[in-house]
């Protein structure tokens, strides 16, 4: 048992726990350093919090911590923090409700932990990987979080730095509510419902993140709802059902990002203003923009240049790297689609192609107000975009299957030879 040892320890002591199984819940109410060697396993037995920290300056390191209580209304967690300057490092958290729940503590450091959520619960009954409430100036770095409800949830949590985390198979990778002046950098979000859902917050800066493979009817790479003055740059948004969604958001800047291979690159409901989307590469998206109203009020170009659009059909006669004619961001099909979504069934039909060509040569429909006045003629190379990180999660190749197709390919040819051989007999009869 660890608890009796903790009771005897003085503030400032270091308690070292050696590998083994410990079925108990811990309450840490004085500032000690709790170190696990060979990953001791603390099992809470599904009753309440597994470790409750109420002393500032506590460190917890090297444990596996499991079996928090399952009542979501009580917000049970594997590690519950109610003090400042707590360090949680290199732990594995399994069978949690919430993984780490910080209630009104600041300057918390959460580094190199793994949080594995409970697959036996439906997603709405699961807790969050890391939950911050009324908490400031935290550092969350190098954690892997999966199978929980939201990866990292912020509620009234300002000025927190999120660095190099890997969050996958959750609802929202990051979920900000009323949390201002946060930054997140170099994180990898994949296969979530939304990579990052930013809501009702201001002054969020994010840089060099990957948002990948958010697929589903309500899936988004990045979701803004009532967000003001965020600044997004050098992110890679790849292979999502929708890349960036904006609702009721104002004065946000989105620049130098690569938006690639999404079914829909941007969905902007026309209820915001002053958003600037400039200097990005939009490559190989099936559609670029779906909007809610008549226009989005978006600024599509800085003074120097606009964005690169891989479906731009203009030309660059003066060779200055900028297209000589503005790029209509919505094609005729997207205009119709805004009114009648079902028309998408005909998206790739020859009729749709004909309509597009006809529209380009003889404009008959008003294609809306969304124009990029000075589109880039070539994609810009931006080494800050984390393509190498994305390559880690790309599909594996399977050379063996080539053999199967080789056999299938032989089939028609062998049939030809067979029929050749039969030919004489058919004719004789």
């Amino acid at each position: 048992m660890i608890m009796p040892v903790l009771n005897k320890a003085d503030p400032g002591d270091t308690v070292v726990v050696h590998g083994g199984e410990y079925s108990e819940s811990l309450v840490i109410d004085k500032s000690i350093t709790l170190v696990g060697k060979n990953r001791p396993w603390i099992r809470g037995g599904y009753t309440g919090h597994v470790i409750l920290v109420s002393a500032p300056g506590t460190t917890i390191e090297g444990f596996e911590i499991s079996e928090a209580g399952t009542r979501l209304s009580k917000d049970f967690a594997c590690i519950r923090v109610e003090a400042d300057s707590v360090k949680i490092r290199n732990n594995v958290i399994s069978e949690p409700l919430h993984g780490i729940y910080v209630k009104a503590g600041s300057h918390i450091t959460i580094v190199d932990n793994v949080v594995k959520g409970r697959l036996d619960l439906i997603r709405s009954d699961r807790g969050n990987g890391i939950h911050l409430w009324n908490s400031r100036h935290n550092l969350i770095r190098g954690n892997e979080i999966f199978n929980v409800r939201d990866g990292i949830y912020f509620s009234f949590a300002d000025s927190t730095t999120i660095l190099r985390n890997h969050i996958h198979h959750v609802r929202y990778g990051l979920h900000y509510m009323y949390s201002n002046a946060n930054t997140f950098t170099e994180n990898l979000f994949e296969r979530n419902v939304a990579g990052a859902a930013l809501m009702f917050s201001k002054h969020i800066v994010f840089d060099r993140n990957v948002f990948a493979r958010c697929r589903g009817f309500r899936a988004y790479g990045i979701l803004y709802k009532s967000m003001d003055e965020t600044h997004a740059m050098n992110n890679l948004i790849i292979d999502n059902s929708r890349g960036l969604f904006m609702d009721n958001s104002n004065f946000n800047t989105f620049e130098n990002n690569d938006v690639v291979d999404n079914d829909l690159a941007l969905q902007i409901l026309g209820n915001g203003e002053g958003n600037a989307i400039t200097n990005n590469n939009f490559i190989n998206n099936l559609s670029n923009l779906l909007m809610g109203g008549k226009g989005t009020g978006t600024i599509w170009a800085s003074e120097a240049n606009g964005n690169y659009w891989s479906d731009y059909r203009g030309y660059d006669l003066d060779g200055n790297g900028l297209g000589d004619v503005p790029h209509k961001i919505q094609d005729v099909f997207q205009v119709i689609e805004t009114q009648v979504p079902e028309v998408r069934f005909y998206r790739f039909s020859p009729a749709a192609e004909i309509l597009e060509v006809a529209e380009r040569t003889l404009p008959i429909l008003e294609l809306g107000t969304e124009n990029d006045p000075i589109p880039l003629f070539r994609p810009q190379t931006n080494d800050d975009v984390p393509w190498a990180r994305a390559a880690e999660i790309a599909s594996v190749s399977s050379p063996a299957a080539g053999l199967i197709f080789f056999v299938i390919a032989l089939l028609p040819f062998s049939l030809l030879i067979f029929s050749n051989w039969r030919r004489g007999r058919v004719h004789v009869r």
Partner: protein
Amino acid sequence: MNHPLLLIAMQEFTLNRRNKWVTSFAGLFAFLTLFISYFGMVTSGYSGFQDFARTSTSLINLTGFVIPLFALLLGVFSFISNREYLELLVAQPISRMQVLMGKYLGLLLTLLITTIAGFSIPGILISFTIGPAGILSYVTVILFSLLLAVVFSGCAILIAQIANRQQIALGVAISVWIFFEVVYGLAMLGATLYLSPAVLKSVLTLGLLGNPIDVFRVLSLLAVGGAEFFGPAGATLMKLVGSEAWAVFLGLAALLTWSVLPVVFAMRLFSRQNL
């Protein structure tokens, strides 16, 4: 192998195989599929994300173009161009149904082999880059393409019965092709300008069933990208039919209806026809 049905089918297949048009058409199809896959998957620098879905979309479009045209022309030709041979066949002591079905099976065999050859060669190339899940959806697309070939060979033999002069039959075949490729889709898109959104929802969704090429395209895209590939439209479809499996079932049922009905009509016409 002595059944007259099979003999006629093999004979038809042999004639098709000897036909230089058929071989060049098959060669062109295989070349185009290879070309599209090569530029879609290999030279674009496969990133492991959506390249496969995008390449498949192009392949699906190509198939939707080439296979119906090939089936219609070949089917009409085989009945119309060599009239004396047909008369000779009908004069044999076998039923007209056997003659028609024999020729139909021979036509099918030719088309199925062309389609498989056209898809399997890029398949070798593609499977060196995609994962196992992608290969499964690729094979599904091949199966749907085969069904499309079946549908249009049925249409071809029906056209050959309706219009039995060569020029007329060819004209009808090409018109039918253009109708299903372009006119039908344009009519659907045009409808969006005139009908109210509430009506359009069902017109556009149910309207898919009226065109086998549309059924084929939507089924194939479902296999490659899933229902969310269609965005909100996909959600409507799921709400309408319940699940993706039901959508596929419904599509397959439509394709089967489309392949059986023309053959039944052709059979009735052919058995009463005065040659």
